[in-house]
């Protein structure tokens, strides 16, 4: 029988990487030792695991490291601690320090006091960036690394490169740059990147927690492929079957300085911070490491990561089950009213009861709103055909794949299939060539006017929406980020 594995403590278990580590641990219980291993999930909000059926030897302990030390007994003597909890994204320097530096200090002190056997600290490749100006996250991770290194505990510092996988904020952010009609790359696009898949990283961390090493070390973890940022964005387009486009380069020197200045005035309400742009001016590549090669054999190639993400996105969009959740939130009466307004906007003032019933029945095929603004757009569009026109004009520009567009497309699909109504949609409107071109120009001008008004009214609303917490019941579990 295999020797028992030391107890394990994981912080940030409800975050993007943490969830996958938990999944990898549960998937590795093929051996008796793994199944019997005592695991403590140290999380800010214990409710995140309320619905999970955890193995008998596991426990969930609530602790907000930004405010408090781990409770007594949370860290067992001889245990291995994997510290994933972190603040990421658009947060103030104070919050970054509070969570990433002071939180790490509290955890380290608790580990020393409890006699932990080893601390595995998940830092970031950004901690090694030569240019970390205004990047409070990178500075905080660097300071936290120093605390870990000075702790006297056996430690391993892990610096992942860009972490990809379904739900990856980095991957989704880069896709937004790559997939538009006019794709852009920030900076020169020549910086080198080496993304690693979140499941490979999770597998590595689990393996690391099972192979305790006395030697202190700092290891970089990256995937097998190293490419220029410009190449990465081009491959993202190709994975989505979009035509190749020249990526327009946006110089970053002045915008970074302006953003840094603006942040002093408006704080973190801007869509992006100067620090977050550091990834576009620094290489994000991993130094080779024997430990990584040994414990993370055959990591996913970049092509697989991109195709997997496309497939997962498609599956999410097409999953009928997801819709039941929307349907349950929106009553039949509400959907019938919504359909009447949308149909009127699209030109059918009295679509009929059966068409409305079809809309309600098939509405379950629409994914739920992804955030507050998506929800606001739908709410606005429901008010009247005119409000719907404004919301749609803006949605086409800012949320082309959002919930409102999907609802309107479903409305159109129902109308083009309905008796008596379909000819307004599925047939040609013949005329002389001059009349046809004139009508197209007039329609285009009307669209431009509506879009301009919609942008003036709704762009500020979109900025405001960024500051409002998303209270949607169907939103995914929160990241380790406190944003």
């Amino acid at each position, binding site marked *: 029988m295999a020797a028992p594995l030391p107890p394990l403590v994981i912080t940030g278990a409800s975050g993007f990487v943490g969830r996958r580590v938990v999944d990898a641990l549960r998937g590795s219980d093929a051996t008796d030792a793994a199944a019997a291993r005592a695991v403590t999930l140290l999380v800010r909000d214990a409710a995140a695991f309320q619905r999970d059926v955890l193995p008998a030897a596991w426990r969930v302990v609530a602790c907000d490291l930004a405010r408090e030390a781990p409770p007594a007994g949370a860290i067992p003597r001889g245990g291995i601690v994997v510290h994933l909890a972190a603040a990421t994204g658009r947060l103030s320097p104070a919050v970054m320090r509070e969570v990433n530096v002071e939180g790490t200090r509290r955890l380290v002190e608790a580990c020393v006091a409890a006699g932990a056997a080893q601390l595995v600290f998940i830092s970031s490749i950004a901690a090694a960036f030569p240019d970390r100006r205004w990047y409070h996250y990178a500075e905080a991770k660097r300071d936290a690394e120093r605390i870990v290194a000075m702790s006297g505990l056996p430690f391993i510092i892990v610096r992942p490169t860009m972490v990809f996988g379904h739900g990856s904020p980095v991957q989704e952010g880069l896709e937004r740059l790559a*997939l538009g*009609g006019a794709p852009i790359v920030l900076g020169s696009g020549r910086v080198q990147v080496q993304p690693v898949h979140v499941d490979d990283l999770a597998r590595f961390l689990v393996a690391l927690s099972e192979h305790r090493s006395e030697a202190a070390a700092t290891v970089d973890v990256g995937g097998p492929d190293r490419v220029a940022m410009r190449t990465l964005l081009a491959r993202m387009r*190709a994975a*989505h*079957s*979009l*035509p*190749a*486009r020249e990526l327009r380069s946006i110089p970053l020197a002045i915008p970074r300085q302006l953003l840094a200045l603006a942040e002093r005035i408006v704080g973190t309400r801007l869509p992006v911070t100067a620090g977050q742009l550091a990834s576009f001016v620094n290489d994000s590549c991993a130094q080779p490491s024997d430990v990584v090669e040994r414990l993370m054999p055959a990591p996913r190639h970049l*092509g697989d990561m991109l*195709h997997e993400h*496309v497939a997962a996105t*498609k599956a999410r*969009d097409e999953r*009928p089950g997801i819709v039941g959740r929307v349907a349950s939130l929106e009553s039949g009466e509400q959907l019938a009213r919504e359909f009447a307004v949308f149909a009127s*906007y*699209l*030109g059918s003032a009295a679509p009929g009861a*059966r068409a409305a019933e*079809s809309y309600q*029945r*098939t*509405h*379950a*095929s629409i994914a739920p709103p992804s955030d507050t603004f998506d929800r606001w757009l739908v709410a606005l569009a429901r008010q009247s055909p005119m409000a719907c*026109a404004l919301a*749609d004009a803006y949605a086409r520009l800012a949320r082309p*794949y959002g919930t409102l*567009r*999907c609802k*309107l*497309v*479903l409305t*159109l*699909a*129902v109308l*083009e*299939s*309905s*008796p*008596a109504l*379909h000819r307004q*949609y*599925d*047939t*040609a*409107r*013949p*005329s*002389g060539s001059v009349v*046809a*071109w004139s*009508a*197209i120009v007039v*329609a*285009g001008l*009307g*669209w431009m006017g*509506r*879009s301009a008004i919609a942008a003036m009214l709704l762009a500020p609303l979109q900025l405001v929406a960024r500051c409002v917490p998303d209270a949607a019941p169907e939103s995914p579990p929160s990241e380790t980020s406190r944003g």
Partner: protein
Amino acid sequence: MRHPVARYLVVGSGATGVHFAQTLLDRGESVEMVDVGFERPIAPLPDADIDALKERLPDPERYFLGDRGEAVVYPAPSAKPYGFPPSKAYVFQRPSGVQVQERGFAPLASYARGGLAEAWTGGSYELRDEELADFPFPASVLRTHYGTVAARIGITGAADDLQRFSPLSAPYLEPLAMDAHSAALLQRYESRRDSSHAAGFYLGRSRVAVLSRDHGGRKSCGELGRCLWGCPRGSLYAPSLTLAELLTHPNFTYRPGLLVSRVLLGPNDRAVGVEATPVAGGSAVRFPAERVILAAGALATTRIYLQTLAADGRQGVRLPGLMDNRHVMVPFVNLRRVGREVAMASYQFHMLAMGLDTGDWRSDVHGQISTLKAASVHPIVHSLPFDLRTSIKIFRRMRSALGVANIWLADTRRNANVAFLQQMGDGATRLTLEYGDEDHDMDATHVAIERTRRGLRALGCIAPAAMVKILPRGSSVHYAGTIPMCDAELEHSSRGDGSVRGFPGLFVVDGAGFPWLSAKNLTFTLMANATRIASTID
């Protein structure tokens, strides 16, 4: 229960299976066919055109969109301008026992009566002699069988500029009358023939397995505009029509509802039957046979072959050479056609085909041009760059001017593209398909796109680069190459007569046996090749 020993046991009822079986029956042999065989639903209101269908069906929204809206194409970066209708769901239904993992490859598979060709658009093109150079039999032999198949199924075609890419040796029916937009494109091409040819761009009538006159029990095209939803007249050929004829033959036994898992091997690895699992559940059933013919489609045949090896103790075999045509959609607007009328009730699919001469027959590009007639319009409307109401207005004005060129590139067998079995935790296996060098033909693809756009421009059309879609590998539905026919005595290959090396009595007659993949639609050649093998098998 012990089943009698079949002389010929065919696995699969797709394009190759039914023509293989019919040829044997014509020879006076007996044939048994084992198949999953999900059935095609009966087309409602067979005499109604698309417009009347929407007016007269009791619940047209359910017919066109599905119970749960599964035929609605929502906005997404990779959204296609069309979706498969609920009436074709049976084509892509997958039995629960089949597990497939794809990497860099998104194939479609079918377990329906008639297989994938139940959802094809009928493109039927003979290969040139040189395109059969890699096949281990004389090209002239296949001509006879192209003729046999064309006579069976009915293919329309015309002697035109496309003969340089695809001969017209078989008996072809006169083409259908063209829709106004297609006719305008062809007329403009003819007025600029010389300059188009100088640019290597050729246009002509597409060769289509659709009837322009009645044929047996099938009626000629009634121009109902219902091709995509399932032709109710049997005008557009589908292998299930041949299967229906086979079912009336006294020497034909059809065993549906069975998923073949492996070939049973006897002494000296001789094929002695197949083992199949009832799709509805239950224990495995064995069907003894003197000869086993795998005609389940390239991917399903590959699965059965690998599972046969695994059951024989040969796990871990990787079959290189998986092929699939690169598929690109190039939408266009014919500026001269804006504001015209559109006859919705007409043959819905392509009426024109194109070829790009690259100077090397191996890399010539093949394409089919469809003008927009009857269609679900919402996928097209929401792809326009305006709000939805404006998009509808502009779409209706431009509807008569819209079309799409679907182009395909040839593919070759390469070691990076493999099929193998992966062992699952529960003891089951999963077919894994890896297309490892997805990007190898991107340069050629971009050149083909640009040349197609230039060719369309010469016809008065604009094809916006932003609208071009390079589809994911696997979209062409032309799969081949895992157990290739060749003269060399290689492991995991087949001979010119379809027999698999190392397994006496086992034959592969579908795309798995193809050693090279032309850019042209594969199905006609698949049917002719299966007929060729069946005509000589002992």
